[in-house]
C-alpha cells in the first residue's frame, strides 16, 4: 500500500512568488493534516481536513496560506505571496476514520515533507 506522498520534495522560490505544495494521502483516509516545521522550532499543526471539509484551520499563520482538498482526495497548500519566514519543511499526514468518538485511537501517517526555501 502506498504511503503519504508529497510533491515537490524541495522548492526554492523568491520572496513574493507563489508556491503550491501537494499531498496525496493514503487511499481511503478521510483525515488529512498539514504541519510545518520552521528551522529550529517544533513541528506545528496548520490545518485538518475531514474529506473535503476544513475541520480545523486554527494553525494557519495568515491569509497568505490557502489549503484545498477538492473531492476529498489530494490536497494542495498554496502560499501567495511567499515571505522569508515561510521557509521550512511542510509535512502532510493522513489517518483513516472521520468519526472520532471518545476512545477512538487515531494514528497519523506522515509523508516525507516538502522543503521550502524562500530567498
Amino acid at each position, binding site marked *: 500500500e502506498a504511503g503519504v506522498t508529497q510533491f515537490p520534495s524541495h522548492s526554492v522560490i523568491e520572496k513574493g512568488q507563489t508556491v503550491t505544495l501537494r499531498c496525496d494521502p493514503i487511499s481511503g483516509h478521510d483525515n488529512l493534516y498539514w504541519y510545518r516545521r520552521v528551522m529550529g522550532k517544533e513541528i506545528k499543526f496548520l490545518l485538518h481536513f475531514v474529506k473535503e471539509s476544513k475541520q480545523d484551520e486554527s494553525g494557519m499563520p495568515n491569509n497568505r496560506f490557502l489549503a484545498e482538498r477538492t473531492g476529498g482526495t489530494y490536497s494542495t497548500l498554496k502560499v501567495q505571496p511567499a515571505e522569508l519566514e515561510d521557509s521550512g519543511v511542510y509535512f502532510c499526514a493522513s489517518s483513516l476514520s472521520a468519526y472520532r468518538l471518545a476512545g477512538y*485511537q487515531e494514528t497519523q501517517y506522515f509523508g516525507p515533507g516538502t522543503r521550502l526555501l524562500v530567498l
Partner: protein
Amino acid sequence: AQSVTQPDIHITVSEGASLELRCNYSYGATPYLFWYVQSPGQGLQLLLKYFSGDTLVQGIKGFEAEFKRSQSSFNLRKPSVHWSDAAEYFCAVSPSGAGSYQLTFGKGTKLSVIP
C-alpha cells in the same frame, strides 16, 4: 494548552550502548502519546504509540517507551543502539477525547551514534 518537552536537543551515544530519550508533556487529562523518527532525507516514521492499557509499549526497530502518569513522561528506550538509529526523534501527544485531532510535538532530539 498542551505542550511537550524534550529536554535534550542532541545526544551522542556509542554503538551498542543503551539509549533513553526523555519526553514530558503537559495536559489536563491523559493524552495519546507517540514517538516518531525522522532519518536524514526521510519523512516522519511512527515508532510506537500509547493509547491505553499496558504502560510499557513496544515499537519497531527494537524501541520501547514507558508511560508514567505520575511523572507525565513517555521516555523512549533502546537497549543497544545501532548506527542506523542516528536520526531525529520526536515525541508527540494528541487529545484522547472525541473530536480532537491535532498532534502537538516536542522540539525533537537529534541522536548521533559513534561507531
